[in-house]
């Protein structure tokens, strides 16, 4: 930097010092720009750099090591051009020094302007012909700065329109400016096509974004060099008054890029008609793709487009925000059609989870949109504010559709439970498929606990309104869940009545209750939602079933082992004793045969049952046999009545509830 400054000073024997010229020029350029929105300081800075480059180039032409004969003509040309530039800048500085518009305006240095325009025309013709591509980085003449001068000259000499002697030069500068603008528009368009995302997307799917780690900032679709060039062209076109052309070219290209990015994400826009006709299996497969596309769009594409437009159009914030809002609206409404259509398909229980996934995606999107759209301190009267609110309400309304559908689907489970009235009992008292289905379903639903709670608070209107239902718990989801569990219990109790054997009906109740308890214990969410008192109530019910079972099955057999009625005046009644043993044996055999076929699949419950049975039966039997076996004599006669040792009893109890009918050998 320092070096080039030093080199610049002695290079030319001009009548004015370069530094004062530069100051004037800087002022000229900064004031002379047409677009009031342009970021003047930045623009001037940009141009200043280009002008410096121009001087540097000119200097290097004077260097002795560059005396190549082929280059001599060109060097001369460049030298002439640089001189011309300085004269033009001097004119522009003079015009700008006038405090007020002079009447009549100062004379135009027509020959200089004319020559300058000739030069510009040559350059622009060269580039337009395509013989030589324009590469701004090794630009002989800083083209944009030159074009900017044409624009300023043009706006300056137009003031002379009433003077007919200038008509020709006015027309000329106008048409050359137009040619420059057409050229820049083409360049702008070609640069915009260098979108590496869009080009990549045509061939291979985009790399998974997650692997890029925590780099929060989305990467722009262009290299910073291209962004800089785009910005230069945009500045130039806007200051020349070609703002709509420039903005349109940009908007079209970026909308197209957005569309091709979206199509490359795998989610294809389908018509609502098609979605409604699609079988659920096919539709289900589309949902993750939709989610991916929606998230990618909102997290990556939209912020990235915003950054890009703000960089390229830093001098036109009105367009930046208009463009950004339009794109966001297109992108978001594009993604809303799908969930809207899914909600319209016939609802069924298995759709709940996908609906919830979509709901969560939109919920998250809403927050992101909030921060995206409403981040910059917008005034209340800013029309874009209502625009943004409108877009937000679009997302919200679709989310509400989904929420409503989720509530309806979930509450439909009530009906499914009520309507499940199979007339045949589960063999062996095993866990009923309904219990399994409902519990596993609820467990999955409760993985969405927070979302479900949120949705229920938003939508749930109990069918029997004005009941105490609304007040007994301010968590309507938990209330609905409790209601479902109660309904399931009722249904299971109903089903237990299908068993003729009362003991078996208790085993059935215990099995199902145990299964529910196990599932509830296994899910922190369900336990929390149902609450401790509910669990206690259920637990005591289970204990009651257990007791009832013991009473039903074992009370009668234990009565055989009682002393009552066995002795008359202290003498053991042998016939009664024999009868007692006989009935004990047959009862025990019966129980063993039937209940070994019963099913208790929960290991803990099973062993608890067996232990409790053993704990009552075995000591009673041991003591009874111990006290009375002597009265039965010995040998075969005795064995006829005392068929089991206490250890045998223990062993046979072990066979119970295994689901395989066992019979004990008639004789040992």
């Amino acid at each position, binding site marked *: 930097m320092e070096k080039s400054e030093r080199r610049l000073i002695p290079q030319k024997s001009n009548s004015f010092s370069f530094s004062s010229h530069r100051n004037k020029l800087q002022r000229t350029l900064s004031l002379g720009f047409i677009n009031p929105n342009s970021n003047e300081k930045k623009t001037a800075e940009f141009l200043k750099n280009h002008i410096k480059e121009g001087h540097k180039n000119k200097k290097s032409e004077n260097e002795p090591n560059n005396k190549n004969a082929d280059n001599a003509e060109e060097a001369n040309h460049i030298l002439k051009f640089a001189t011309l530039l300085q004269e033009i800048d001097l004119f522009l500085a003079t015009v700008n020094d006038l405090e007020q*518009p002079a009447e009549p305006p100062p004379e135009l240095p027509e020959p200089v302007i004319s020559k300058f325009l000739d030069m510009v025309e040559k350059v622009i013709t060269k*580039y*337009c012909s*395509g013989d030589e*591509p324009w590469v701004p980085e090794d630009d002989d003449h800083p083209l944009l700065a030159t074009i900017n001068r044409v624009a300023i000259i*043009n706006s300056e000499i*137009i003031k002379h*329109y009433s003077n007919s002697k200038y*008509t020709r030069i*006015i*027309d*000329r*500068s*106008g*048409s*050359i*400016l*137009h040619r420059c*603008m*057409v050229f820049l*528009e*083409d360049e702008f*368009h*070609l640069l915009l*096509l*260098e979108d590496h995302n869009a*080009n990549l997307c045509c061939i291979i799917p985009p790399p998974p974004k997650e692997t890029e780690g925590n780099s929060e900032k989305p990467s722009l679709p262009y290299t910073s060099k291209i962004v800089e060039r785009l910005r230069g062209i945009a500045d130039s076109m806007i200051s020349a*008054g*070609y703002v*709509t*052309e420039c903005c*349109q*070219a940009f908007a*079209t*290209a970026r*909308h*197209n890029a957005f*569309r*091709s990015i979206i199509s490359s994400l795998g989610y294809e*826009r*389908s*018509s*609502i*008609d098609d979605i*409604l006709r699609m079988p659920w299996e096919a539709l289900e497969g589309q949902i993750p793709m939709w989610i991916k596309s929606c998230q990618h769009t909102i997290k990556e594409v939209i912020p990235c487009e915003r950054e890009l437009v703000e960089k390229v159009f830093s001098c036109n914030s009105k367009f930046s925000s208009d463009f950004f809002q339009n794109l966001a609206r*297109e992108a978001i*409404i594009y993604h809303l*059609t799908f969930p809207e*259509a899914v909600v*319209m398909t016939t609802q069924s229980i298995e759709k709940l989870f996908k609906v919830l996934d979509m709901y969560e995606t939109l919920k998250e999107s809403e927050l992101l949109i909030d921060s995206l759209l409403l981040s910059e301190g917008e005034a209340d009267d800013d029309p874009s504010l209502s625009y943004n609110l*409108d877009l937000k*309400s*679009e997302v*919200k*309304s679709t989310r509400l*559709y989904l929420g*409503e559908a989720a509530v309806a689907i979930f509450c439909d489970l009530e009906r499914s439970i009520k309507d499940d009235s199979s007339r045949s009992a589960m063999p062996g008292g095993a866990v009923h498929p309904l219990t399994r289905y409902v519990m596993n379903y609820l467990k999955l639903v409760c993985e969405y606990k927070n979302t479900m709670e949120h949705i229920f608070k938003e939508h749930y*209107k109990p*069918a029997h*309104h004005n009941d105490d239902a609304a007040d007994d718990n301010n968590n309507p989801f938990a209330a609905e869940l409790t209601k479902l569990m109660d309904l399931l219990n009722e249904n299971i109790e109903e089903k237990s009545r299908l068993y003729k054997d009362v003991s078996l009906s208790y085993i059935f109740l215990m099995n199902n209750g145990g299964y529910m308890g196990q599932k509830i214990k296994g899910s922190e969410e369900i336990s929390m939602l149902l609450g401790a008192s509910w669990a206690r109530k259920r637990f005591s019910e289970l204990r009651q079933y257990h007791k009832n079972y013991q009473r039903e099955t074992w009370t009668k057999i234990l009565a055989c082992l009682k002393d009552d009625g066995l002795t008359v005046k202290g003498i053991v009644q042998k016939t009664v004793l024999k009868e007692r043993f006989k009935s004990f044996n047959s009862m025990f055999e019966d129980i063993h045969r039937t209940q070994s076929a019963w099913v208790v699949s929960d290991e803990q419950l099973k062993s608890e049952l067996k232990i409790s049975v053993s704990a009552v039966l075995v000591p009673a039997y041991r003591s009874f046999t111990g006290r009375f076996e002597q009265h039965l004599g010995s040998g075969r006669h005795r064995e006829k009545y005392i068929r089991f040792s206490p250890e045998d009893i223990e062993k046979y109890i072990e066979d119970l509830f295994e689901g395989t009918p066992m019979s004990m050998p008639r004789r040992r």
Partner: protein
Amino acid sequence: MPATDYQGSSVPFASLGRSILSIRRDQVHSMDGHDPSTEQELESFQRRVSDLFADLSSSPDQILSLAWIRKLLEGFLVSLEEFRVILFNHRAAVTRPPLDRMVSDFFERAVKALDLCNAVRDGVGQVCQWNKHVEIVVQSLASWCEVDESGAKKTRPFGEGQLRRGKKTLMDLNFLIMDEKESASASHRNRSFGRSKDPHKSSSSSPSHLSSGVHFRSLSWSVSRTWSAARQLQNIAANLNAPRGHDVTATAGLAMPVYTISTVLVFTMWALVAAVPCQDRGLQIHFSIPRNGFVWSPALLSLHEKIVEESKRKDRRNANGLMKEIYQIEKSSHQLLELLDGVEMPMGEEKENQLKNSVQELENVCEILKGGLEPLERQIREVFHRIVRSRTEGLDSLSHGNE
């Protein structure tokens, strides 16, 4: 009334999201299924629809203008809303045959309108884009007529640069409009960017200057190559017949509003497709409306005839859309282009006046579109939402009506 139920909410669409259940809660005591004023209610609905079509026919030269289309949509929304109230007031009757079948038949038609809404919204976006070019033409050619520093009304001669700019933009615009015409048939639809994949290669081997409007060509955004607005319209209109006498008696007259709203729906969608560019436009649908069967039928049928006539006019047969403003853009821009083609500088006073007139015409259209397209797009979106909402409610009341 449910119609007033969603006032005062800050979120317009969300408030529509209230389910019929909640409305029922609020209304259950004030409205008991059977209402002696049913006849009045149904009559007032017919009158409402009749007023709408009378209003739409009142100034024949405005038919298919942007303002007219917006009025039509507004009318559709109001009619739909009233229909919703009627369904609600007769929710018990709605669950009984044959009315249940008629109502669900209407909602099936309505759902088919949703895809049309989306396609037409895209078309409105397209017109919006064209209007940007009109804006440039006006900017470049009109600025010469009015700029003055002291405030005095002076006109400058047209400068050559601005004339060229105007001409280039007109050609771009022409390209875009023609391009849309070419691709309007479904078979040409899914093109990709109109340029080779490697822009640099092409720019170095051939002149990079692209004179036509390819810069502004939009990538196709349609749902699928085979989707057709014409076919969708036919589906919506299929088997729509006026209810027979015994159906009317069996439904206590309620078959009439169902048929009426279905017809309003079909006409509205048909007119939208007629007016706005969209994929595979076609206006061939069968309208079997008894000419004297309803108070609104003469007005509706005559509108239908006028629009069909318009579409058959020689200069409109290949139009992208019959919207009046699109026609004006095409007409004025052709005129301008012709004028500019033959122009020599300095141009004579007569030429200049012609030019100024055409620019003025274009400027008027441009202003109308600038102010009206965005609201139109929103209105179509609103139609979409309302259809979804009333369908959900309607089906809900069909399945739970007896509760």
